[in-house]
Structure formats: structure tokens, C-alpha cells
């Protein structure tokens, strides 16, 4: 299954809604969408992960890329993350640099 991404910017906060799988094949699209969003000044990046069913290190590298593009002053928030994807993120320690909310968590 490939990755589908929809984007929206509202009040300076960019939201990416992810559906599918963030593996190596998804990296070009994921990075392109992140690049498009981060060319303008935004105050925050939200990833809606309710439909994200899989994330490998290739997907994690896109989060790293977002951090590099946005700088440390801009928060990155992942919402509705599945237990498996959250576990992958925690294994690398990236959860310390992003706001990670599991499914059902507010």
C-alpha cells in the first residue's frame, strides 16, 4: 500500500494527513510535500497519523528532514499514532523531539 498525503495550512499551522505506509517508496512524495509546506513560514507542523499503518526508518528520516527544514523553534506534533508506529518512533528516541500522541489520546 502506498502513502497518500493531504495538506492544509491554517493560522500558520501546517497539517499533513497521512494514509497508508511510510516506507522507502513513500519518501519522495513525503519529502516533496514537506518541502512545499516548509518553504513558507509556519509556526507548527501537525501530522495526522490516524490512517498511517506502517513506518520504517525511511519514514522516520522524513521527520528528521522536517526538523532540519523547520528548525528547532517549530513544533512537530504527531496525532492518532498507532501503537506499532509509536513503538518504532520510540525505539530511535525521536519521540523526545516531537509531540507524540497515540490513538485515542488528547
Amino acid at each position, binding site marked *: 500500500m502506498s502513502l497518500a498525503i493531504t495538506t492544509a495550512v491554517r493560522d500558520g499551522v501546517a497539517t499533513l494527513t497521512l494514509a497508508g*505506509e511510510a*516506507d*522507502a517508496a513513500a519518501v519522495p512524495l513525503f519529502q516533496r510535500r514537506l518541502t512545499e509546506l516548509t518553504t513558507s513560514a509556519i509556526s507548527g507542523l501537525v501530522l495526522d497519523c490516524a490512517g498511517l499503518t506502517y513506518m520504517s526508518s525511511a519514514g522516520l*528520516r522524513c521527520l*528528521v528532514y522536517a526538523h532540519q527544514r523547520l528548525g528547532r523553534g517549530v513544533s512537530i506534533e504527531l496525532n492518532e499514532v498507532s501503537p*506499532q508506529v509509536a513503538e518504532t518512533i*520510540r525505539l530511535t528516541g525521536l519521540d*523526545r523531539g516531537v509531540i507524540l500522541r497515540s490513538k485515542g489520546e488528547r
Partner: protein
Amino acid sequence: MSTVRIRLRGDRSPSPCVAALVDRLAGESGLGERQAYRLRLAADELATNVAEHGYRWVPLPLELIGGVSADRVWLRIEDTAPPFDPRLHVARSTEPTDQPDRLPGGYGLLLALRSVDVYEYEYRDGRNRSTVAMSLSPEPAEQS
């Protein structure tokens, strides 16, 4: 117990075939969702690493072999790239990073090796052979 062998080429992403094979093995063995996810993640990281770094997307042979035994579900990746033991190339720090703007090389391998119950490597007959496996827990006893 059955064994499945899939022959791939190193110029294509192995991810979809890894996913399909793990789905099949999980269905056959009753492997739990979390364990199946971790087995898939490990095999995907290792196979993608072969295609990307071992072969540099050249169409050389990459094989996935998987099976179910009495006590485990296993998947082996075989390739003809130069000898490469992933255990010697995982991210230098085995501690998680607290610097999200840097994810050093080798974290995919770290994820792979940390995700499974068993990891084995050997180089034999001109092939790297990486095997990942998850243990099959006995079914919980029925409560009366």
C-alpha cells in the same frame, strides 16, 4: 511446516514483497499483530538496506525465504553483495537519539535488530544470509 521462497531483483523496492510474505506467514502461524509488524519492519529494513547500499539499485538477485516452524516464524534475506554483517554496522550509539534533526546512518539496522526475537547472520557460498525470527508463544490455557 512450509517454506516460501521469493526471488527479487535489487533494482526494485523489496518492501511490498516483504509485507506480503510476512502477512502470509503471520496468517499461517497465528503470529500476533505486534509481532508481525516487528518482523515485517526488521525484514524490510534489512532487505531495503541490501538494495540501497549493497546493490545500489543494480538488478542483482535478492531472495526472501520464509517459513513457520514449531516454535517460530522466520524470514531470511539472501544476497550476493560483498560480505556485510549488519551487527557491525548498526548506529554507533545504541542509545536513542534526543537530537531529532540528526538520525545517523545505521538506525534502520538498529530498528531491525531490536525488533525481532532472533537475528542470525552468516556469509556462506558467496551469499549474505540474514535471518530474523519471532518466537511463537504457546496459546494461553483455556480458563475453566
